[in-house]
């Protein structure tokens, strides 16, 4: 598959930063203080690597340039940091010298010079040397890989950059929301989405244009305004299956799924919409607040028309796996919100 014009792509750089860009002819993109054109990507295959040099010129590179294996290769430690003191004098090059280098030289050469001029580099433990190299490469080399957009990378990009905009919809919470929803292609879905179209994108992808999705719009948004949704490059069929609804008389006769993601007045929605759900239908709600879901659960349990309400939150932790240095990662997202699910019965 080749990259086309006017398609959104996902770029991941050597620092692990993510960006979503729509490839346009002649347009300049701003990233990491560099301004560059991406038209070189048009016609290239996905999963190729590129670097930006100190003159903002973009060129294609190899995978080996992107993924340094420095940290992996260390097997034995022979030194300790007993004689290394934090005195800010270890690097002989001054700030001005480094600034000059950045204007004139390639990243790899700058790193070589920094190591040559470091008094403590040789004294460091092998793990420290590897970490130092990795840090310098992340700082002075700018390269990225281009990938097609997926729900996973669109969600990750938004969550890292502006989580509030997508209502703090974390990847595992989104995953559980989708699994609870159990969407098949014959579904009629009624959806309330306050996550800027992130939840909508995941649901629409799974529905694949073969059912109907009634999306409650707040009157001000159209599908074009929902950027995460647009980033998925959905085809005509999928977009046609979504009908924007503004008032209750535009609802269909009955729905098989009621999906709510984001902060809404759940009691009001429940009272108004409860009857439209068929028996055997499912309700799935995502909210950052347990109290709201607790109130809704109580309403459902009282009405006697629902199975026992399931209310969960999820724990997600990434791990660093390196020889003799395996442990959970220090940076962790401790809180991802809650999801509620119940089935309607007579």
């Amino acid at each position, binding site marked *: 598959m080749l990259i086309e014009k006017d398609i959104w792509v996902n770029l991941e750089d050597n620092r692990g930063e993510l960006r979503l860009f729509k490839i346009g002819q002649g347009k300049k993109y701003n990233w990491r203080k560099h301004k560059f054109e991406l038209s070189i990507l048009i016609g290239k295959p996905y999963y190729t690597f590129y670097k930006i040099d100190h003159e903002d010129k973009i060129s294609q590179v190899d995978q080996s340039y992107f993924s340094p294996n420095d940290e992996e290769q260390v097997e034995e430690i022979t030194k300790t940091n007993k004689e290394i003191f934090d005195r800010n004098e270890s690097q002989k090059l001054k700030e001005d010298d480094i600034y000059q280098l950045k204007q004139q030289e390639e990243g790899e050469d700058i790193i070589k010079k920094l190591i040559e001029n470091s008094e403590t580099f040789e004294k460091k433990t092998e793990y420290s040397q590897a970490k130092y190299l990795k840090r310098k490469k992340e700082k002075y080399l700018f390269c990225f*890989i281009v990938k097609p957009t997926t*729900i996973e990378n669109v969600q990750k990009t938004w969550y890292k950059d502006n989580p509030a905009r997508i209502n703090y919809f974390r*990847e595992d919470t989104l*995953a559980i929301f989708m*699994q609870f929803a159990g969407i098949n292609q014959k579904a009629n879905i009624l959806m309330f989405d306050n996550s800027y179209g992130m939840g909508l994108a995941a649901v629409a992808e799974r529905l694949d244009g073969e059912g109907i999705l009634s999306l409650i719009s707040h009157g001000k948004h159209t599908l074009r305004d929902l950027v995460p949704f647009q980033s998925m490059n959905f085809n005509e069929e999928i977009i046609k299956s979504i009908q924007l609804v503004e008032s209750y008389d535009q609802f269909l006769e009955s729905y098989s799924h009621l999906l709510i993601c984001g902060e809404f007045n759940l009691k009001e929605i429940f009272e108004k919409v409860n009857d439209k759900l068929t028996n055997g239908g499912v309700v799935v709600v995502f909210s950052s607040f*347990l109290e709201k879901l607790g109130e809704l659960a109580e309403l459902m349990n009282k009405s006697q028309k629902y199975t026992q309400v399931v209310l969960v939150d*999820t724990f997600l932790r990434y791990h660093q796996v390196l020889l003799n240095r395996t442990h959970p990662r220090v940076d962790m997202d401790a809180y991802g919100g809650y999801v509620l699910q119940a089935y309607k019965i*007579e």
Partner: protein
Amino acid sequence: MIKYNQTLVVIEQKKPKCLLTITEGQTWQSIGGAYHHLSLIDRNYGDKIQSKSEKGYIHLIQPTPSLITETIPHKTQILFLADISIIILKLNIKPGSIVIESGTGSASLSCSIASAVGHKGRLYTYEFNEDRAKNGEEQLRKLGFPQAECIWRDVYGQGFLKEDHGDHKRFPDAGTVDAVFLDLPQPWLALDHSKKMMKKGGKICCFSPCIEQVQKTCAKLKEDGWFGIETLECLKRNFEARVKQESFIFDDIQKKICLNTKNAKIQTEEGKQVITKNVYYSTGQQSAYGHTGYLTYAVFL
């Protein structure tokens, strides 16, 4: 409407209880009474169905992936909701995807994947134990997933491709697979076989309960040039919404405050005025899984 040969989920006491295949001449027995399968025919999904003695009732609804996970018979330890959902999201499994899974186990994850790939996609699931392979095939047919194929095969030795002795099953072609999921004791032995099957940009996920297995898997992935290797774990906690009646016996000042809040009732008990209020609160449930396994992902380039 309910017909013979459908497999449905029985909801009893408001909770999913088990799977039931509607069969001619059979009766399902439970605490609430007996249910002749004949009496279930032509009822609607979600209807309240009384038992013969009318002492109890059940509901029958169509199985969805999360219900299947809760009710499918366990032949092995199965994967639960939290792991299944993050596997499907991070492997980018969606309608039209071609997916390989090994081993099938009890077919819990297989049903979830088959549902996600839809009628346009394909799931090929491999199991080295003959009984479980037969059971996997049966479950997938009963639950209505013609897009899934369950194959009896030891993947370490034989890989995923069709072998020459004309097997009647469908097999994936090399270089066409979008995602591979391995739940094996030694996943690093199946990595080269997986490479042959995958498209450029396809993703693999290895599930391992022990960190030693994860280390071996990651070492091989890095050695063989896989990209974007990450290891994570995902667990869930359950909460319960409850209502409690809390009673307040107050002096005059606190009575004033209490009367101003909604849902307060005033009763007279033994000459004293007792004010009770409904308090809504959610509480966590004590039992939870502390660990199921580590999930390691990588991209094939």
